[in-house]
């Protein structure tokens, strides 16, 4: 799953449609509300901004290693994958269908969060998506998130990811509520220099999220590795009950107590017992996983 393949094909560089083509069994994908249906944003024109015919998200059904799944893929290059009214409604509809059909869902995240031009509609959409996610999960449906896109997974997108049953990330993937620029704008450059890319990856990147137990699987930036990761994530338990939530709450409290005052990823990794924390960003996947498997914060079965 994690060994670099000789014919590596970058997930990060692929388009949302390209990722779906590589993720699913060949020829198995059927799109719902495709671009020819012209369900695009009714708001962007007011700002003299161009719309995209699928509003930056592709939803549909397909097979993954023979298993029927519902899928949603965000296009991070269109407005940073931001979630507007129609984009959000397509994902909500998919998750509601998943609940009715009792069919697992795979979400290919690539989003900066709410689309600012559609602020209220976008915020509402995220609440609806979270509700639909939890309703589906309460019926035993797995909702797997894949995190390896250009825009990362920020803002409301990260809240949705946090409600998933399992998350798969690559080193290139980033997962955080507030993005680098947001933190710098609100707290100052002394708190967070958004132009320091190494800092961004040390605090929000795939390796850090895996070490701190915020995601379940770490894979190469490769379409085949993400496919294998998604298959493995769909094998994980789907349970979402009081016991799971209580365990997750305890885990998060423990994590906060352990790392709450750490100023940088390297400090967190040192506390986890990683011998050479400064060297972590340079490790290749297999060397990283050797260390991470022994040292990472137990993600236990909570999620």
């Amino acid at each position: 799953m994690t060994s670099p393949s000789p014919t590596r094909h970058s997930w990060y560089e692929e388009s949302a449609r390209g990722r779906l083509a590589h993720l699913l069994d060949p020829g198995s994908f059927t799109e719902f509300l495709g671009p020819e249906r012209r369900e695009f944003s009714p708001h962007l024109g007011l700002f003299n901004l161009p719309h995209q015919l699928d509003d930056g998200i592709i939803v549909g059904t397909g097979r993954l290693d023979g298993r029927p799944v519902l899928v949603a893929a965000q296009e991070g290059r269109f407005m940073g994958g931001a979630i507007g009214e129609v984009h959000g409604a397509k994902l909500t509809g998919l998750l509601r269908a998943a609940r009715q059909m009792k069919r697992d869902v795979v979400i290919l995240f690539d989003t900066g969060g709410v689309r600012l031009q559609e602020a209220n509609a976008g915020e509402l959409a995220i609440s609806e998506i979270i509700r639909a996610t939890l309703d589906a999960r309460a019926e035993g449906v797995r909702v797997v998130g894949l995190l390896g896109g250009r825009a990362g997974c920020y803002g409301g997108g990260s809240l949705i990811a946090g409600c998933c049953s399992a998350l798969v990330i690559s080193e290139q993937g980033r997962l955080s509520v507030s993005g680098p620029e947001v933190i710098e704008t609100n707290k100052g450059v002394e708190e967070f220099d958004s132009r320091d890319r190494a800092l961004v990856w040390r605090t929000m990147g795939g390796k850090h999220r895996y070490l701190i137990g915020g995601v379940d699987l770490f894979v190469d930036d490769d379409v085949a590795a993400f496919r294998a990761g998604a298959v493995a994530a769909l094998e994980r338990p789907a349970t979402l009950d009081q016991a799971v939530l209580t365990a997750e709450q305890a885990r998060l409290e423990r994590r906060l107590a352990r790392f709450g005052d750490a100023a940088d990823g390297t400090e967190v990794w040192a506390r986890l017992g990683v011998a050479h924390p400064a060297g972590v960003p340079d490790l290749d996947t297999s060397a990283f996983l050797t260390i991470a498997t022994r040292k990472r914060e137990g993600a236990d079965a909570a999620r």
Partner: protein
Amino acid sequence: MENLRYELSTTKPAGGTRAVGLVGVVASGNLEVLLERGEAPDRCVIDIATPAHGFAALWQAVTADFAVRMAAGGLRITINDGGARPDTVALRLAQGVHLMEKPE
């Protein structure tokens, strides 16, 4: 937003049987091109929405060249532009025609 429409005469009908094709994304310097069928085989209609005002002459030249060079007869094309350069537009249009020729 500037909306442009070109109704072009073509000599070669589009190949393949695919009903719909989509290439590109709406991003800076890029564009999406949706291709559908439904026009007469000697005609191609292109609808363009672009945030860059005042470049109709350039769009006309690129689309006219496309209609002459490519097998685009019968196609109805919708373009959402993100400020693409003319060469990018020409490549995307060609990519779209090739996609329509491929089996689904």
